[in-house]
């Protein structure tokens, strides 16, 4: 992976930088610079790429984050933000001449406010930690990435993470009310709060999903929801993925938005069943998990309707969860799909494109063709309701050129997603992984306009450089306006 050329002059000053950082972050274990200890930070969830950072700093307060950034800004030192390091696109991949700024010590929930149905928390708290803090009162935080026991809420904001329930309850961006945010020059700003809607430009919406390129999230306010009274899941097996896809379309056309709607193909079903013994049928080509949640009357009513639709669409296997234990068992397979595939292959690469759902059969067929051509197996899990595909490409990093072939296969899948009207990434982010594919979706003008937004936040481009954008332009160059004076346009344009 091509990264910005490390700045030897900065690396040569490592000692002095460490000394200064220790005064800015004086607590024990706040500054890490020993090679062995640094190794723990060399990669994130995209383990194919590794780089030992120059220094790791773990601040304990917003004031410390601000002080570190101001110092690095003044000294021209690059910063890579890091939450829990579970990201799957290499967003937290370190730089040889950069400081990895970890938020793991900012790990306290600051306030639970039931009357206003929100939680104020530091960014290092895990996604599940928020739900744990409020579940005794019957509340939960809705976006639930499969990594929820480990990933941080700050990382969720940076990636605008999703989960299996986001068709009905939205992504992170739809569930965040406010953040405290530190800009690269150390300025601390607040966007949003416990109230709704932005005053002025929606900068909260902009920093959500900005992959650590615009600033550091140091505090978060999220809305919490009351747990639905009941939830039941249906497990539906189909002889073909086309039929499963049609079933999804029919459910939505009937005006039903399930709490969750997930699909797995045969390789994924077999891998997960062997791993967690969820009770999945092994003789079907595609499996759907459809979860209905709400009051009992609604769930009973909709379970019947969905089941009828599934029968019409040719489902050969159906089973409705009888109790909580069984519902959780249905989900356990899906939620463990990644590690399950990890067991049947030395390595796997998880892709994350989104497609218009009705193109699914075609995309799956072409993926099978690619799988043969590249000589690599692929298992598919799919957020069926919203068209977000997760093809898992199985490979062995120890075999020469298998990683390169895997990456080429993955790139071809993502380009296919764009070709059929979809996008490169639905929830995992661009990071370094999809950076060089951005041109498949955006032209130069689109990308430059995005980078001008970056310039408003970080004009020296010291925050997480080398991520998201295939080519870095200097802000001065991006700001230049090429003016062509002409005559008044279109005299024939209707005017009144």
């Amino acid at each position, binding site marked *: 992976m091509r990264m910005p050329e490390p700045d030897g002059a900065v690396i040569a000053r490592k000692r002095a930088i460490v000394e200064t950082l220790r005064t800015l972050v004086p607590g024990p274990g706040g500054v890490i610079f020993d090679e062995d200890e640094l190794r723990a930070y060399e990669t994130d969830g995209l383990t194919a790429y590794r780089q030992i950072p120059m220094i790791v700093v773990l601040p304990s307060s917003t004031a410390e984050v601000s002080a570190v950034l101001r110092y690095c800004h003044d000294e021209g030192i690059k910063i890579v933000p890091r939450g829990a390091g579970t990201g799957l696109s290499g967003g937290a991949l370190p730089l040889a001449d950069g400081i990895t700024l970890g938020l793991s010590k900012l790990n306290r929930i600051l306030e639970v406010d039931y*009357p*206003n*149905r929100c939680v104020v928390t530091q960014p290092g708290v895990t996604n599940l930690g928020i739900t744990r803090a409020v579940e005794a009162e019957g509340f939960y935080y809705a976006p639930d990435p499969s990594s929820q026991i480990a990933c941080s809420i700050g990382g969720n904001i940076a990636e605008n993470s*999703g989960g299996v329930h986001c068709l009905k309850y939205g992504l992170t*961006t739809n569930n965040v009310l406010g953040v405290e945010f530190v800009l690269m020059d150390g300025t*601390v700003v607040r*966007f949003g*709060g*416990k*109230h*709704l*809607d*932005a*005053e*002025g*430009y*929606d900068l909260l*919406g*902009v920093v*959500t*999903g900005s992959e650590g390129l615009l600033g550091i999230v140091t505090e978060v306010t999220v809305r919490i929801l009351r747990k*639905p009274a009941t939830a039941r899941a249906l497990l539906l097996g189909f002889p073909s993925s086309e039929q499963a896809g049609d079933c999804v*379309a029919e459910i*939505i*056309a009937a005006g*039903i938005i399930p709490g969750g709607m997930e699909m797995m193909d045969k390789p994924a079903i077999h891998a997960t069943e062997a791993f967690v013994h969820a009770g999945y049928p092994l003789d079907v080509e595609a499996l759907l998990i459809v979860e209905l949640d*709400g*009051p*009992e*009357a*609604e769930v009973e*009513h909709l379970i019947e309707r969905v089941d009828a639709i599934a029968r019409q669409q040719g489902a050969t296997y159906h089973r409705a969860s009888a109790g909580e234990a069984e519902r959780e068992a249905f989900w356990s397979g899906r939620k463990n799909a990644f590690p399950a595939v990890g067991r049947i292959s030395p390595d796997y690469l998880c892709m994350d494109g*989104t497609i*218009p*759902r009705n193109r699914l059969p075609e995309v799956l067929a072409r993926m099978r063709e690619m799988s043969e051509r590249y000589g690599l197996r692929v298992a598919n899990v799919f957020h069926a309701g*919203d*068209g977000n595909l997760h093809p898992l490409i199985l490979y062995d990093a120890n075999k020469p050129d298998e990683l390169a072939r895997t990456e080429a296969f993955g790139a071809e899948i993502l380009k296919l997603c764009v070709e059929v*009207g979809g*996008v490169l*990434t*639905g929830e*995992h982010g*661009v990071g370094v992984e*999809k950076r060089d594919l*951005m041109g498949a979706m955006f032209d130069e003008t*689109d990308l430059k*306009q*995005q980078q*001008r*937004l970056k*310039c*408003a*936040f970080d004009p020296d481009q010291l925050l997480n450089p080398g991520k*998201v954008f295939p080519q870095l332009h200097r802000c001065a160059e991006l700001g230049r306006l090429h003016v062509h*004076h*002409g005559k*008044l346009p*279109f005299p024939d*344009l*209707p005017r009144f």
Partner: protein
Amino acid sequence: MSDSWKPTDDAQVLEAVAWASAEEVPLEIVGQGSKRSFGRPLQCERDLDLSGLSGITLYEPGELVLSAKAGTALSEIRAALEDARQELAFEPPDLAPFFGRPAGAGTLGGTIAANLSGPRRINAGAARDHFLGFQAVSGRGERFKSGGRVMKNVTGYDLPKLLAGSFGTLAVMTDVTVKVLPAPEKQRTVLLFGLDDAAAVAALSAALGSPHEVSGAAHLPAAVAAGSSVDFVAGAGTAVTAIRLEGHGPSVEARCAALREALAAGGPAAAAQEELHSQRSRTLWREIAELAPFVVRPELAVWRISVAPSEGPKVAATLADLPEMLHYFDWGGGLLWLGTAAGGTAEEVRVRGAVATVGGHATLLRAPARVRLAVPVFQPLDAARAALSRRVKEGFDPRRILNPGRMVPEL
């Protein structure tokens, strides 16, 4: 009177903006003009009228997605969605009558640019939450796009969020794509009578914190309730608190019964209840969304105040002595609509002062042009955010030719 251009395709929009950028001629960006008097008054040499850029370009109900030219009439979008029993779930309010224009005016692009949402904002989200992608021309005179036509997309910065609520000050949208959802089969509204503001917001908070999926939570003090065209509300002779439940038939009935029981158990204050079904319920929420209490009082200046729900009643109490003060709450208490005699700076200082003590923002949604020139219409930002906003504007519209000063003088 300014000169008006009415392009009929994207190329003409590009040509017009590129020319204006080169010549540094400010443009006022207009849809159907339904919200033209929202914001600081503009003095532009030319109007760019986008209502000729019209038509639905893609609608796939099964995919929950609709794309249209930005100048498409909202009424046309609504009609198409209704045919497939779908809707824009953020409930865009028709504010044309409130602004003294014929009902039904407004375009999809204008709705998004103003990021206006109705009572369902509390659980379905705002316009910005349903805005998936766009094509636009920046103030630099360049065509660009962002987002897409799928619901789940984190490819690059979320520029749709930035353009939603930017009031045409960053780019001229030519094509927009939104998420659409099935329209609820059924709705019911539970009414509680005689609660004061604080007790009402406490009851709304309890309802919103219940598992009954409340999709509307408003409180109308007696003076506002009396003006409703819904008999049960107007005839109450006291304050009315309204809680809406929507969804599949059996679900709404069950939730309604359960909610009423829970509220009754909440104490004697909440004991007086009534229930509105379909048409009456719809009418009441339309009145709440479309600011009906202020449509009939065109002389009042109207503030839109967004705070944490529990703070709403306190803010209203602090401002109770404003001349001719008339108010009601939506969003469970978090949205305070407040009318007052159209004064100026004195009222502004009071309103913004009250909001400052609790956090949130106040927008002067309606007032005579001289007032909107004299006082900040949008909540003034602190120095850091103001500087950031200026730099964002600089990146999109460096010569300040798009709606310059519509939000604040420097943008």
